């Protein structure tokens, strides 16, 4: 990075061999940030899946979800971090570490689900408006403008509560549990930013030679969209997916904090909400969920940033 930026001044001969890579690159060791993010996310996912579905495997480090920690014969509320309870205990004598891990499952599922919803809907809108332009573009851009003019959290608040009510009125909505509500709502929130980026990429792609060539060879629309454009949009979509995941997970925490989280298990945002009244008595009950949230969001952002760098997609980097 350091010296190559000055390249425009240095007139490199055309046949210059590519710059020699650093030792790290030659040994295919990813940069520290990537290594950290992948390890953190893989570790977290594994732990939370084990804790939720095969608790016996991890029982040596974790308590079952509903366990109340007891000390001296009574429930040990707000026990400071110690050898048994690494992150201490909370308001109802629960082990914070175990809860942090249990909750991760819901958070990750909602994050991934919402990102997929956003990618599919936003990607569709983006491609269609970028490819057809004209009126299609104008209408869809008004639509995305509308979505962007409502603060995401406000939209999510209203939508989730309305879905709650509607579930009671229409029986066909009974599948829409809280997890689904949050996933769909956050997915909708993600539609507009995703659509914007995909549209911008489509606009540049459609003018590229290979698309022109396909068109001149008489390829029809669906062929151009699915065979020429879509594969070339994958890097951009993947990049925004990772960056978006971080943001959506943060949004989920915000919702849970406001009391609109999944009932059980408690996610990080909910844990912060529960413990915040006693923040002066037990710092661990809020700080550790905060830390989990921060590291997870950071990991997704770092991966998104790395992909943006690799694929040279500027819009998608934070």
């Amino acid at each position, binding site marked *: 990075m350091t010296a190559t930026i000055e390249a425009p001044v240095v007139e490199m001969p055309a046949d210059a061999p590519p710059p020699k890579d650093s030792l790290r690159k030659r040994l295919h060791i990813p940069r520290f940030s990537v290594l950290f993010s992948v390890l953190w996310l893989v570790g977290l996912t594994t732990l939370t899946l084990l804790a939720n579905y095969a608790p016996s495997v991890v029982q040596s480090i974790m308590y079952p979800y509903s366990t109340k920690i007891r000390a001296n014969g009574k429930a040990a509320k707000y026990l400071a971090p110690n050898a048994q309870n690494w992150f201490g205990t909370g308001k109802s004598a629960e082990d914070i570490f175990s809860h942090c891990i249990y909750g991760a499952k819901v958070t990750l599922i909602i994050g991934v689900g919402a990102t997929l919803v956003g990618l599919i809907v936003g990607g569709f809108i983006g491609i269609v408006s970028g490819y057809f332009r004209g009126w299609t573009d104008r209408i869809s851009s*008004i639509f995305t*403008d509308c979505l962007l003019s*409502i603060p995401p959290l406000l939209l999510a608040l209203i939508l989730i509560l309305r879905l709650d009510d509607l579930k009671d009125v229409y029986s066909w909505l009974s599948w829409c549990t809280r997890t689904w509500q949050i996933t769909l709502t956050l997915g909708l929130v993600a539609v507009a930013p995703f659509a914007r980026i995909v549209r911008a990429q489509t606009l540049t792609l459609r003018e590229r030679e290979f698309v022109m060539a396909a068109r001149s060879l008489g390829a029809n629309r669906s062929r151009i969209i699915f065979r020429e454009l879509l594969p070339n949009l994958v890097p951009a979509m993947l990049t925004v997916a990772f960056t978006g995941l971080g943001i959506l997970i*943060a949004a989920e925490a*915000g919702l849970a904090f*406001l009391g609109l989280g999944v009932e059980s298990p408690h996610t990080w945002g909910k844990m*912060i909400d529960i413990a915040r009244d006693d923040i002066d008595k037990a710092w661990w009950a809020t700080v550790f969920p905060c830390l989990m*949230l921060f590291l997870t969001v950071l990991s997704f952002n770092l991966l998104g940033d790395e992909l943006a760098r690799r694929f040279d997609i500027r819009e998608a980097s934070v």
Partner: protein
Amino acid sequence: MAAAAHPPRFGSLLLFEVLVRYLVQRLLRFAVVFFIVTFGLMVLMRLGMNHPGDPARTMLGGTVTQAQIDDVTARYHLDSRLIVQYWFWLKGMVTGDMGVSVQQNLPVSTYIGTRVLVTFFLGVYSLLLAIVVAIPVAVFQSYKRDSVRDKFLSVSSFAFVAIPPVVMGVLLIQLFVIHLGWFPRTGEKIYPWDDPVAHVKNFALPVLALALPVGAVFSRLLRADMVRTLQSDFITLASAKGVSTQRILWRHGLRNSLFSLVTSIGLQLAGIVGGAIVVEQLFNMKGMGTLLVSTILSKDLFVVQALSAIIVATVVMVNLVVDLSYALIDPRIRQMRALS
């Protein structure tokens, strides 16, 4: 570029006329967005209320008599078609009547007046602080590009981006309220004209919690643009003219690098308002955010509708201003837009 070779000649009057036309176009577009969003929210809030008395019953909440329901229904045209209701609502908004909180039996305007101000302070301070912090940091980073200090600032700004307002708020409380005891725990509303010091103290932490992540985003955007600008020929030319480093950075570099930052202000504002909902809750501030949460939960629909409309209108207006301000910064965009 081809067009630039034969620039069109505008008399200043003609240019003015075209700019006005552009302004009207943008205004129209934002008006359309405002109508769609507010009407959409109204529809959303009435979904599933299939019986004539439903909206009134929902709004009143609790156990109510049929007489009360009928009264409210009749008074607020709740039995007419949605579009008619929307018309009445819109007419009310324009004439300054924002509706009534059915539960509190108070006009929304008096009910939310002070609340709006709290959130207004929160939002404006956060946005300003974010910009004021981001610009010098990014300018410094681009000047010392790839140095240790630049890398340190890049990493820290990246970390700040990843801190959601909830987390930031909790950490700030932990550090400044509990550990150091510098600031009060709650941000009760105190007007700057009543007690400036207390005002600053009350708002400092919530504003920081909102502004730091946004400022980090701004500084990253600006640094990237600034680095690119500083590599362009006209910057080298400015050096070759003997222009001082400070002047190159601030006069030549910064102005040419504001595009991403300015365009993202509009987007970030929506995020700030969303974050304000959480931060107000965390700091027990009596702002629009806490009111929104409680009225959404208690289904005081008119209040929710009025608050959302205020928020959407603000976001839309700020976007409009941002859009126009960029045309003011960059003469090329001015011309391009005038031509299209």
